[in-house]
Protein backbone atom coordinates (compact mmCIF):
# COMPACT_ATOMS: atom_id res chain seq x y z
CA UNK A 1 0.00 0.00 0.00
CA UNK A 2 1.37 3.38 -0.91
CA UNK A 3 0.90 6.88 0.34
CA UNK A 4 -1.58 7.50 -2.47
CA UNK A 5 -4.17 5.45 -0.65
CA UNK A 6 -4.63 8.14 1.98
CA UNK A 7 -8.22 8.62 0.79
CA UNK A 8 -8.49 4.91 0.95
CA UNK A 9 -10.45 2.58 -1.19
CA UNK A 10 -13.36 4.94 -1.74
CA UNK A 11 -11.95 6.69 -4.81
CA UNK A 12 -10.75 3.38 -6.21
CA UNK A 13 -14.21 1.88 -5.75
CA UNK A 14 -15.80 4.87 -7.45
CA UNK A 15 -13.41 4.45 -10.39
CA UNK A 16 -14.32 0.75 -10.51
CA UNK A 17 -18.02 1.62 -10.68
CA UNK A 18 -17.28 4.18 -13.41
CA UNK A 19 -15.28 1.65 -15.47
CA UNK A 20 -18.10 -0.86 -15.26
CA UNK A 21 -20.86 1.63 -16.03
CA UNK A 22 -19.05 3.38 -18.89
CA UNK A 23 -17.39 0.22 -20.23
CA UNK A 24 -19.03 0.56 -23.65
CA UNK A 25 -18.18 4.25 -24.17
CA UNK A 26 -14.61 3.80 -22.96
CA UNK A 27 -14.10 0.82 -25.28
CA UNK A 28 -15.52 2.75 -28.24
CA UNK A 29 -13.03 5.56 -27.65
CA UNK A 30 -10.05 3.30 -27.02
CA UNK A 31 -10.82 1.36 -30.21
CA UNK A 32 -9.97 4.57 -32.10
CA UNK A 33 -6.71 5.10 -30.20
CA UNK A 34 -3.53 4.23 -32.17
CA UNK A 35 -2.65 1.29 -29.91
CA UNK A 36 -5.78 -0.70 -30.76
CA UNK A 37 -6.66 0.82 -34.16
CA UNK A 38 -3.30 -0.08 -35.70
CA UNK A 39 -3.25 -3.64 -34.36
CA UNK A 40 -6.84 -4.72 -34.96
CA UNK A 41 -7.01 -3.57 -38.55
CA UNK A 42 -9.40 -6.22 -39.85
CA UNK A 43 -12.46 -5.29 -37.83
CA UNK A 44 -13.27 -2.47 -35.49
CA UNK A 45 -15.40 -4.84 -33.40
CA UNK A 46 -12.26 -6.72 -32.49
CA UNK A 47 -10.64 -3.52 -31.30
CA UNK A 48 -13.73 -2.73 -29.20
CA UNK A 49 -13.71 -6.23 -27.68
CA UNK A 50 -10.01 -5.93 -26.84
CA UNK A 51 -10.63 -2.52 -25.28
CA UNK A 52 -13.51 -3.91 -23.20
CA UNK A 53 -11.27 -6.67 -21.88
CA UNK A 54 -8.73 -4.06 -20.78
CA UNK A 55 -11.44 -1.92 -19.14
CA UNK A 56 -12.76 -5.01 -17.30
CA UNK A 57 -9.25 -5.83 -16.09
CA UNK A 58 -8.77 -2.28 -14.81
CA UNK A 59 -12.13 -2.47 -13.00
CA UNK A 60 -11.03 -5.70 -11.33
CA UNK A 61 -7.74 -4.11 -10.26
CA UNK A 62 -9.57 -1.02 -8.95
CA UNK A 63 -11.89 -3.33 -6.99
CA UNK A 64 -8.87 -4.93 -5.31
CA UNK A 65 -7.57 -1.44 -4.41
CA UNK A 66 -4.04 -2.30 -5.57
CA UNK A 67 -3.79 0.55 -8.07
CA UNK A 68 -0.01 0.56 -8.26
CA UNK A 69 0.62 -3.17 -8.15
CA UNK A 70 1.65 -4.56 -11.54
CA UNK A 71 1.20 -8.07 -10.16
CA UNK A 72 -2.47 -7.45 -9.29
CA UNK A 73 -4.55 -10.47 -10.24
CA UNK A 74 -6.85 -8.35 -12.41
CA UNK A 75 -4.18 -7.97 -15.10
CA UNK A 76 -3.91 -11.74 -15.50
CA UNK A 77 -6.75 -11.90 -17.98
CA UNK A 78 -5.33 -9.26 -20.33
CA UNK A 79 -1.60 -9.82 -19.89
CA UNK A 80 -1.37 -12.14 -22.88
CA UNK A 81 -3.55 -9.91 -25.04
CA UNK A 82 -1.52 -6.81 -24.14
CA UNK A 83 1.70 -8.71 -24.81
CA UNK A 84 0.46 -9.69 -28.27
CA UNK A 85 -0.67 -6.13 -28.97
CA UNK A 86 2.69 -4.68 -27.92
CA UNK A 87 4.54 -7.34 -29.93
CA UNK A 88 2.43 -6.53 -32.99
CA UNK A 89 3.30 -2.84 -32.62
CA UNK A 90 6.98 -3.68 -32.13
CA UNK A 91 6.97 -5.76 -35.33
CA UNK A 92 5.85 -2.72 -37.31
CA UNK A 93 8.95 -0.90 -36.08
CA UNK A 94 7.43 0.86 -33.07
CA UNK A 95 10.03 1.68 -30.42
CA UNK A 96 9.29 0.69 -26.79
CA UNK A 97 9.01 4.39 -25.91
CA UNK A 98 6.40 4.89 -28.63
CA UNK A 99 4.39 1.88 -27.42
CA UNK A 100 4.52 3.25 -23.87
CA UNK A 101 3.27 6.59 -25.19
CA UNK A 102 0.41 4.86 -26.99
CA UNK A 103 -0.63 3.10 -23.80
CA UNK A 104 -0.41 6.42 -21.96
CA UNK A 105 -2.64 7.97 -24.62
CA UNK A 106 -5.50 5.74 -23.44
CA UNK A 107 -5.73 7.79 -20.27
CA UNK A 108 -7.04 11.06 -21.76
CA UNK A 109 -10.29 9.66 -23.27
CA UNK A 110 -11.10 7.75 -20.08
CA UNK A 111 -10.28 10.77 -17.88
CA UNK A 112 -12.53 12.93 -20.03
CA UNK A 113 -15.45 10.56 -19.47
CA UNK A 114 -14.72 10.37 -15.77
CA UNK A 115 -14.59 14.15 -15.44
CA UNK A 116 -18.01 14.40 -17.11
CA UNK A 117 -19.42 12.22 -14.32
CA UNK A 118 -18.94 15.01 -11.81
CA UNK A 119 -21.03 18.19 -11.68
CA UNK A 120 -17.94 20.00 -10.42
CA UNK A 121 -14.73 18.41 -11.80
CA UNK A 122 -12.66 20.62 -9.48
CA UNK A 123 -14.24 19.13 -6.36
CA UNK A 124 -11.84 17.19 -4.11
CA UNK A 125 -13.71 13.94 -4.69
CA UNK A 126 -13.45 14.30 -8.49
CA UNK A 127 -9.73 15.03 -8.14
CA UNK A 128 -9.25 11.92 -6.02
CA UNK A 129 -11.01 9.79 -8.61
CA UNK A 130 -9.01 11.30 -11.47
CA UNK A 131 -5.82 10.64 -9.51
CA UNK A 132 -6.88 7.04 -8.91
CA UNK A 133 -7.56 6.60 -12.62
CA UNK A 134 -4.18 8.16 -13.47
CA UNK A 135 -2.42 5.73 -11.12
CA UNK A 136 -4.32 2.83 -12.64
CA UNK A 137 -3.41 3.84 -16.19
CA UNK A 138 0.22 4.38 -15.19
CA UNK A 139 0.35 0.87 -13.81
CA UNK A 140 -1.24 -0.46 -17.00
CA UNK A 141 1.60 1.13 -18.93
CA UNK A 142 4.13 -0.67 -16.75
CA UNK A 143 2.26 -3.95 -17.18
CA UNK A 144 2.40 -3.61 -20.97
CA UNK A 145 6.13 -2.80 -20.93
CA UNK A 146 6.91 -5.60 -18.51
CA UNK A 147 4.96 -8.08 -20.61
CA UNK A 148 6.67 -6.92 -23.78
CA UNK A 149 10.12 -7.17 -22.17
CA UNK A 150 9.58 -10.64 -20.77
CA UNK A 151 8.46 -11.78 -24.22
CA UNK A 152 11.76 -10.45 -25.54
CA UNK A 153 13.69 -12.25 -22.81
CA UNK A 154 12.05 -15.55 -23.73
CA UNK A 155 13.07 -14.99 -27.33
CA UNK A 156 16.66 -14.17 -26.36
CA UNK A 157 16.87 -17.27 -24.17
CA UNK A 158 15.57 -19.48 -27.01
CA UNK A 159 18.06 -17.97 -29.43
CA UNK A 160 20.86 -18.46 -26.93
CA UNK A 161 19.98 -22.14 -26.71
CA UNK A 162 19.90 -22.43 -30.50
CA UNK A 163 23.30 -20.75 -30.70
CA UNK A 164 24.74 -23.31 -28.28
CA UNK A 165 23.62 -26.10 -30.58
CA UNK A 166 24.36 -24.48 -33.88
CA UNK A 167 27.93 -23.40 -33.47
CA UNK A 168 29.60 -26.62 -32.43
CA UNK A 169 29.60 -29.08 -35.31
CA UNK A 170 31.94 -32.05 -35.29
CA UNK A 171 33.43 -32.75 -38.73
CA UNK A 172 34.93 -36.04 -39.85
CA UNK A 173 38.10 -35.20 -41.79
CA UNK A 174 39.39 -38.71 -42.37
CA UNK A 175 38.85 -42.21 -41.08
CA UNK A 176 39.75 -41.86 -37.41
CA UNK A 177 40.21 -38.06 -37.51
CA UNK A 178 37.55 -35.58 -36.42
CA UNK A 179 37.67 -31.81 -36.04
CA UNK A 180 35.70 -29.22 -34.07
CA UNK A 181 35.97 -25.63 -35.30
CA UNK A 182 35.32 -23.51 -32.22
CA UNK A 183 33.78 -20.12 -32.92
CA UNK A 184 32.97 -17.23 -30.60
CA UNK A 185 33.05 -16.98 -26.85
CA UNK A 186 33.96 -20.23 -25.13
CA UNK A 187 32.10 -19.89 -21.85
CA UNK A 188 31.34 -22.75 -19.49
CA UNK A 189 28.03 -23.66 -21.14
CA UNK A 190 29.52 -23.73 -24.65
CA UNK A 191 32.52 -25.75 -23.46
CA UNK A 192 30.21 -28.33 -21.97
CA UNK A 193 28.34 -28.71 -25.28
CA UNK A 194 31.61 -28.90 -27.19
CA UNK A 195 32.96 -31.58 -24.88
CA UNK A 196 29.80 -33.68 -25.10
CA UNK A 197 29.61 -33.42 -28.90
CA UNK A 198 33.29 -34.23 -29.24
CA UNK A 199 33.20 -37.28 -26.97
CA UNK A 200 30.07 -38.59 -28.72
CA UNK A 201 31.81 -38.20 -32.07
CA UNK A 202 34.94 -39.95 -30.77
CA UNK A 203 32.77 -42.98 -30.07
CA UNK A 204 30.61 -42.75 -33.20
CA UNK A 205 33.54 -42.23 -35.60
CA UNK A 206 35.96 -44.40 -33.62
CA UNK A 207 38.28 -41.41 -33.82
CA UNK A 208 41.94 -41.73 -32.81
CA UNK A 209 42.61 -38.03 -33.35
CA UNK A 210 40.45 -35.03 -32.55
CA UNK A 211 41.41 -31.56 -33.72
CA UNK A 212 40.14 -28.57 -31.74
CA UNK A 213 40.52 -25.50 -33.92
CA UNK A 214 40.40 -22.19 -32.02
CA UNK A 215 40.89 -19.85 -34.99
CA UNK A 216 37.43 -18.44 -34.33
CA UNK A 217 37.86 -17.93 -30.58
CA UNK A 218 38.69 -14.25 -30.04
CA UNK A 219 40.02 -14.49 -26.47
CA UNK A 220 41.89 -17.34 -24.82
CA UNK A 221 42.03 -16.59 -21.12
CA UNK A 222 42.74 -18.98 -18.26
CA UNK A 223 39.14 -20.21 -18.14
CA UNK A 224 39.08 -21.02 -21.86
CA UNK A 225 42.47 -22.72 -21.52
CA UNK A 226 41.16 -24.75 -18.61
CA UNK A 227 38.13 -25.83 -20.65
CA UNK A 228 40.43 -26.88 -23.49
CA UNK A 229 42.65 -28.89 -21.15
CA UNK A 230 39.65 -30.66 -19.62
CA UNK A 231 38.30 -31.53 -23.06
CA UNK A 232 41.70 -32.87 -24.12
CA UNK A 233 41.97 -34.94 -20.93
CA UNK A 234 38.48 -36.39 -21.38
CA UNK A 235 39.14 -37.31 -25.01
CA UNK A 236 42.41 -38.95 -23.97
CA UNK A 237 40.53 -41.13 -21.48
CA UNK A 238 38.46 -42.36 -24.40
CA UNK A 239 41.51 -43.22 -26.47
CA UNK A 240 41.64 -40.17 -28.72
CA UNK A 241 44.53 -37.76 -28.89
CA UNK A 242 43.61 -34.09 -29.24
CA UNK A 243 45.47 -31.54 -31.30
CA UNK A 244 44.70 -27.85 -30.69
CA UNK A 245 45.13 -25.80 -33.85
CA UNK A 246 44.48 -22.23 -34.93
CA UNK A 247 46.72 -20.59 -32.34
CA UNK A 248 47.45 -17.12 -33.64
CA UNK A 249 50.70 -15.27 -32.77
CA UNK A 250 48.94 -12.77 -30.49
CA UNK A 251 47.14 -15.58 -28.67
CA UNK A 252 50.38 -17.55 -28.26
CA UNK A 253 52.17 -14.55 -26.67
CA UNK A 254 49.22 -13.89 -24.39
CA UNK A 255 49.05 -17.50 -23.21
CA UNK A 256 52.76 -17.43 -22.33
CA UNK A 257 52.43 -14.17 -20.35
CA UNK A 258 49.38 -15.44 -18.56
CA UNK A 259 51.48 -18.37 -17.39
CA UNK A 260 49.28 -21.10 -18.82
CA UNK A 261 51.20 -24.33 -19.41
CA UNK A 262 49.89 -26.08 -22.52
CA UNK A 263 53.01 -28.26 -22.67
CA UNK A 264 50.99 -31.44 -22.27
CA UNK A 265 48.88 -30.66 -25.33
CA UNK A 266 49.90 -31.08 -28.96
CA UNK A 267 49.36 -27.72 -30.65
CA UNK A 268 49.71 -26.54 -34.23
CA UNK A 269 49.40 -23.12 -35.83
CA UNK A 270 46.97 -24.16 -38.56
CA UNK A 271 44.25 -26.75 -39.01
CA UNK A 272 46.11 -28.19 -42.03
CA UNK A 273 49.22 -28.70 -39.88
CA UNK A 274 47.14 -30.58 -37.33
CA UNK A 275 45.63 -32.76 -40.06
CA UNK A 276 49.07 -33.62 -41.48
CA UNK A 277 50.24 -34.50 -37.96
CA UNK A 278 47.27 -36.83 -37.41
CA UNK A 279 47.52 -38.44 -40.87
CA UNK A 280 51.23 -39.19 -40.36
CA UNK A 281 50.53 -40.72 -36.97
CA UNK A 282 47.91 -42.93 -38.60
CA UNK A 283 50.48 -43.95 -41.23
CA UNK A 284 48.38 -42.53 -44.03
CA UNK A 285 50.47 -42.06 -47.12
CA UNK A 286 50.32 -38.48 -48.34
CA UNK A 287 51.23 -38.07 -52.00
CA UNK A 288 51.93 -34.74 -53.61
CA UNK A 289 53.35 -31.68 -51.89
CA UNK A 290 52.57 -31.56 -48.20
CA UNK A 291 51.94 -28.11 -46.77
CA UNK A 292 54.86 -26.89 -44.72
CA UNK A 293 54.27 -27.61 -41.07
CA UNK A 294 54.83 -24.54 -38.96
CA UNK A 295 57.03 -25.01 -35.93
CA UNK A 296 58.27 -28.43 -36.98
CA UNK A 297 61.04 -29.53 -39.33
Amino acid at each position, binding site marked *: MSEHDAAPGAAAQQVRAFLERRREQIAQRWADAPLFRTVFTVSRDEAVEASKAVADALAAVAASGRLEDITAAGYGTVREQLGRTAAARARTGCSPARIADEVAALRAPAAELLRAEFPDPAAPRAQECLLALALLMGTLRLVVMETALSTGEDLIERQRQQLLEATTPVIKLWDGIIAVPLIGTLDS*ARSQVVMENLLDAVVAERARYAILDITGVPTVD*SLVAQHLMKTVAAARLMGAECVVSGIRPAIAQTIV*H*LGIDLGAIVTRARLSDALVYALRRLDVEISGPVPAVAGRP
Partner: protein
Amino acid sequence: MQTSPGTAATILPIGSDADLAWARHQVRQAAAALGFGLVQQTKLITAASELARNTLVHGGGGHLEITPVAHGKARGLRLSFVDTGPGIRDLELAMTDGYTTGGGLGLGLSGARRLVHEFRVDTRPGGGTTVTVVMWLAGMPVPRPGTG
Protein backbone atom coordinates in the same frame (compact mmCIF):
# COMPACT_ATOMS: atom_id res chain seq x y z
CA MET B 1 48.86 10.56 -15.49
CA GLN B 2 45.78 12.39 -16.55
CA THR B 3 42.57 11.62 -18.30
CA SER B 4 42.71 12.50 -21.96
CA PRO B 5 40.79 15.68 -22.70
CA GLY B 6 37.49 15.25 -24.47
CA THR B 7 37.23 11.55 -23.74
CA ALA B 8 34.89 10.39 -21.02
CA ALA B 9 35.07 7.16 -19.10
CA THR B 10 32.84 4.30 -20.15
CA ILE B 11 31.20 2.44 -17.29
CA LEU B 12 29.94 -1.09 -17.87
CA PRO B 13 28.10 -3.37 -15.44
CA ILE B 14 29.59 -6.77 -14.61
CA GLY B 15 26.81 -9.02 -13.41
CA SER B 16 26.64 -12.00 -15.74
CA ASP B 17 28.56 -14.03 -18.32
CA ALA B 18 26.92 -11.95 -21.02
CA ASP B 19 28.32 -8.80 -19.36
CA LEU B 20 31.81 -10.33 -19.53
CA ALA B 21 31.47 -10.84 -23.28
CA TRP B 22 30.23 -7.27 -23.67
CA ALA B 23 33.06 -5.90 -21.51
CA ARG B 24 35.64 -7.70 -23.68
CA HIS B 25 33.97 -6.31 -26.77
CA GLN B 26 34.06 -2.76 -25.41
CA VAL B 27 37.70 -3.03 -24.31
CA ARG B 28 38.58 -4.30 -27.79
CA GLN B 29 36.84 -1.32 -29.38
CA ALA B 30 38.45 1.19 -27.04
CA ALA B 31 41.91 -0.33 -27.60
CA ALA B 32 41.47 -0.42 -31.37
CA ALA B 33 40.27 3.18 -31.38
CA LEU B 34 43.46 4.28 -29.57
CA GLY B 35 45.58 2.46 -32.16
CA PHE B 36 46.77 -0.51 -30.11
CA GLY B 37 48.37 -3.29 -32.18
CA LEU B 38 46.86 -6.75 -32.33
CA VAL B 39 49.19 -8.28 -29.73
CA GLN B 40 48.63 -5.44 -27.25
CA GLN B 41 44.90 -5.56 -27.86
CA THR B 42 44.83 -9.29 -27.23
CA LYS B 43 46.87 -8.96 -24.04
CA LEU B 44 44.68 -6.17 -22.68
CA ILE B 45 41.43 -7.95 -23.55
CA THR B 46 42.66 -11.16 -21.97
CA ALA B 47 43.70 -9.33 -18.79
CA ALA B 48 40.29 -7.62 -18.77
CA SER B 49 38.58 -10.99 -19.17
CA GLU B 50 40.44 -12.44 -16.18
CA LEU B 51 39.82 -9.42 -13.95
CA ALA B 52 36.18 -8.99 -14.95
CA ARG B 53 35.57 -12.65 -14.15
CA ASN B 54 37.17 -12.12 -10.73
CA THR B 55 34.82 -9.18 -10.18
CA LEU B 56 31.88 -11.42 -11.09
CA VAL B 57 32.91 -14.65 -9.34
CA HIS B 58 34.72 -13.37 -6.22
CA GLY B 59 33.29 -9.87 -5.88
CA GLY B 60 29.71 -10.86 -6.60
CA GLY B 61 29.52 -8.46 -9.53
CA GLY B 62 30.42 -4.80 -9.92
CA HIS B 63 31.46 -2.57 -12.76
CA LEU B 64 34.26 -1.82 -15.19
CA GLU B 65 35.45 1.69 -15.96
CA ILE B 66 37.32 2.22 -19.23
CA THR B 67 39.24 5.52 -19.41
CA PRO B 68 41.67 6.74 -22.07
CA VAL B 69 44.66 8.33 -20.28
CA ALA B 70 47.64 10.47 -21.22
CA HIS B 71 51.02 11.10 -19.65
CA GLY B 72 53.03 13.62 -21.61
CA LYS B 73 53.05 12.23 -25.12
CA ALA B 74 52.16 8.73 -24.04
CA ARG B 75 48.64 7.49 -24.63
CA GLY B 76 47.06 4.57 -22.89
CA LEU B 77 43.97 2.91 -21.59
CA ARG B 78 43.06 2.50 -17.95
CA LEU B 79 40.66 -0.21 -16.81
CA SER B 80 39.22 -0.23 -13.28
CA PHE B 81 37.36 -3.27 -12.02
CA VAL B 82 35.29 -2.35 -8.99
CA ASP B 83 33.29 -4.60 -6.71
CA THR B 84 31.86 -4.30 -3.22
CA GLY B 85 32.42 -7.95 -2.36
CA PRO B 86 34.24 -9.54 0.56
CA GLY B 87 37.65 -8.19 -0.46
CA ILE B 88 40.92 -10.15 -0.61
CA ARG B 89 42.22 -11.26 2.78
CA ASP B 90 45.75 -12.22 1.76
CA LEU B 91 46.73 -10.29 -1.34
CA GLU B 92 50.20 -11.82 -1.55
CA LEU B 93 48.71 -15.30 -1.56
CA ALA B 94 46.04 -14.30 -4.09
CA MET B 95 48.78 -12.99 -6.39
CA THR B 96 50.61 -16.33 -6.33
CA ASP B 97 50.54 -18.37 -9.55
CA GLY B 98 48.30 -21.36 -9.14
CA TYR B 99 46.52 -20.21 -5.98
CA THR B 100 42.76 -20.37 -6.46
CA THR B 101 39.63 -20.31 -4.35
CA GLY B 102 37.29 -20.57 -7.32
CA GLY B 103 38.34 -23.86 -8.93
CA GLY B 104 40.18 -22.15 -11.79
CA LEU B 105 43.83 -22.32 -12.77
CA GLY B 106 44.80 -19.63 -10.26
CA LEU B 107 46.31 -17.42 -12.94
CA GLY B 108 43.71 -14.65 -13.08
CA LEU B 109 45.34 -11.95 -10.94
CA SER B 110 48.95 -12.96 -11.40
CA GLY B 111 48.54 -13.59 -15.13
CA ALA B 112 46.70 -10.32 -15.72
CA ARG B 113 49.53 -8.47 -13.95
CA ARG B 114 52.05 -9.85 -16.44
CA LEU B 115 49.92 -8.77 -19.41
CA VAL B 116 49.73 -5.05 -18.62
CA HIS B 117 52.13 -2.19 -17.85
CA GLU B 118 50.63 -1.00 -14.58
CA PHE B 119 48.70 -3.00 -12.05
CA ARG B 120 47.23 -1.97 -8.71
CA VAL B 121 44.92 -3.69 -6.26
CA ASP B 122 43.04 -1.78 -3.57
CA THR B 123 41.25 -4.09 -1.21
CA ARG B 124 40.43 -4.71 2.39
CA PRO B 125 38.46 -7.52 3.98
CA GLY B 126 34.75 -6.71 3.80
CA GLY B 127 35.42 -3.49 1.90
CA GLY B 128 35.37 -4.61 -1.70
CA THR B 129 38.13 -4.73 -4.27
CA THR B 130 39.26 -2.36 -7.01
CA VAL B 131 41.81 -3.58 -9.53
CA THR B 132 43.22 -0.91 -11.82
CA VAL B 133 45.40 -1.69 -14.82
CA VAL B 134 46.97 0.58 -17.43
CA MET B 135 48.27 -0.37 -20.86
CA TRP B 136 50.39 2.19 -22.72
CA LEU B 137 50.47 2.41 -26.48
CA ALA B 138 53.60 0.72 -27.87
CA GLY B 139 56.23 3.01 -29.36
CA MET B 140 55.58 5.66 -26.73
CA PRO B 141 57.79 6.03 -23.69
CA VAL B 142 56.17 4.08 -20.88
CA PRO B 143 56.00 6.46 -17.91
CA ARG B 144 56.59 3.93 -15.17
CA PRO B 145 57.87 0.71 -16.69
CA GLY B 146 57.42 -2.48 -14.75
CA THR B 147 55.12 -0.99 -12.16
CA GLY B 148 53.23 -3.55 -10.20
